[in-house]
């Protein structure tokens, strides 16, 4: 999917990033992608090919709720809002991610024997 110069999203982290983006208030799909892009200092790029299936899955799982609204440029857009269940998932996944990244850092910081 991505060339080696562009870091790809690790499996499972997309959900966490999406949920984090909407944790401050409801956003539409494009805004979620932009939020992730900007918050990562324009390193991470979420393609809509992965974004929308993920959004639909999270909605189906009950981590997000969706409602149609009007966007800033007066267009009909679907706004995703985090649910109680979604917040729980953030907490869980955050922990997993922390352990994973610490572990990776540890490995890289030490010389192999």
């Amino acid at each position, binding site marked *: 999917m991505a060339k080696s110069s562009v870091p790809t999203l690790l499996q499972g982290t997309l959900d966490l990033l999406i949920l984090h983006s909407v944790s401050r208030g409801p956003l*539409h*799909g*494009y805004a979620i*992608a*932009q939020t992730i892009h900007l918050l990562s200092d324009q390193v991470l790029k979420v*393609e*809509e*090919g992965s974004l*929308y*299936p993920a959004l*639909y*899955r999270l909605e*189906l799982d009950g981590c997000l709720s969706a409602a149609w609204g009007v*966007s800033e*440029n007066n*267009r*009909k*857009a*679907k706004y995703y809002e985090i649910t109680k269940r979604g917040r729980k998932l953030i907490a869980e996944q955050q922990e997993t991610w922390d352990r994973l990244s610490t572990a990776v850092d540890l490995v890289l910081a030490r010389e192999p024997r």
Partner: protein
Amino acid sequence: MIYRTLLKMWRRRRLARDLETELAFHKEMAAAANNPIPFGNAAVIKEHAFDLWRFNAAENLWRDMVYSLRTLRQSPGFVLTALLSLGLGIGVNTTMFSLAVEFLLSDPSVRDAKTVVYVRQGGNSHVLPATLDDLRRSGLFAGVAGENDEGFINFDNGLATQRAFATQATKNFFSVLDVPVRLGRGWTENDPDEVAVLSAHFWRTRLAGDPAILGKAIRLDGRAYTVLGVLPENYRSLIGYGFSPDILVPTYIEGSILRAYARLKPGMTVGQLNAGLPALTQRLLGEFPDRYEANQRLNAAPVSVMQQLTTERDAMTIGLFFVILLVVAGLILLVACTNVAGLLLARASVRRQEIATRLALGASRMRLLQQLLMESLLVSLAGAALGFVLALGAAKAMAAVSLPLPFPVRLHLETNWRIVSYAALLAVFSALSSGLMPALVSLKESLSKGMRRERKLRMRRVLVAAQIAVSFVVLTTAALFLQNLLRTNSMSAGFDVNHTIHAEAFLPPHAYPDGQDHQSLHRPGTGRIARDSRN
């Protein structure tokens, strides 16, 4: 889970539209912000989203069905044979089941049959009219009514006099038992004696279904009776077993003995009532020593057939009879299923290549099994539909034919949810029992080449052996029933039946009030026969 699936199916179209709108919006925003416009394939995204929502499982099912229909169309011979086998099998079963439902699960036509009991004195089916009064006065019941089903009445339609089966009942019959009446009403205590309520059959066949029959007079036993009402088509008499008299009239033969039916007081059970009846018998015995005997205790039995099945020995015997009938019918269906299984097994070898190819292309065994079973399910469902039509025809024929019996029996085989779900159950059962084994065999053998012939031959042998065994049981049972029937026909009556004439005449009781009149009617005839035969 099922609810969610249905919800998803329903939402499918909306989901596709939503996704499209969303993607269009996304593109527009990207363009406005001067970001690279995504090239993503919208169809792929949709596919992903749909996969999430598990539309594919439903779609696979649909595809399997279409595919199965196509393959079945290519082998009409197989379909026809399987359809006939299963159709007959399921038809027989459904008919037997509806018979069993009619006999075992249908309560007589009274309100709340569970609170009505049949009161007997010892083993006698009928009691004296005075006993009814005693029962009423006892205060044990909410109401006591009586009827006598064994009467005849002469119906004069203006051209000829025909015999009709009449039930005489007490004046409170309709008020105590709440027998439903389709047209008009039942009689009350305020009505005169010469009123009648007709059965739907009698009304249709003898009175041409005259819609203005209510209030008209018909001639019964030479007297004019006013028609008060017509019973519903599916009226079930208290005797049950399809016994359906033509006419209901208030007691017209003075002193007729009656079957006593009583309505329980609210909250009282049959058991509680039966506990109180010995004391009542004892009391009545003291009061009327001429009408009661110490060894003929009053006892009550439920009229609801379901209740009878658990308490009455006669009803249990009949229940057992139907269980046997259903088992035999089930065995016939089993034979039909093994028949179809054999056919499917033969087909399996033809389709071996197709299955091997699909397995090689990565189809999962579950998917193939699902598809193979879909085929037998379709055949079975079609068979069930055919069987259901056959059963409907049988029910109609049974309702139309009056059985050659000396008493009126008419069966109302109803098509209700019980029968429909039984047929559906049979369809699933026959789909599995005829389809599962051949499907598994064909999946297995498409992989192992060497074992193929051996296993299939063994499978065939097992099938044939099962078929013969089951057929043997069915035939033996049929032979036993037949033998019994022949034996009852040839049973000796204990006298010379070949030179004996039996004649019956039903004399209106008001025209021939006592035995003297009867004698004067038949004496000349019997006298002449006696004289002639002596010569």
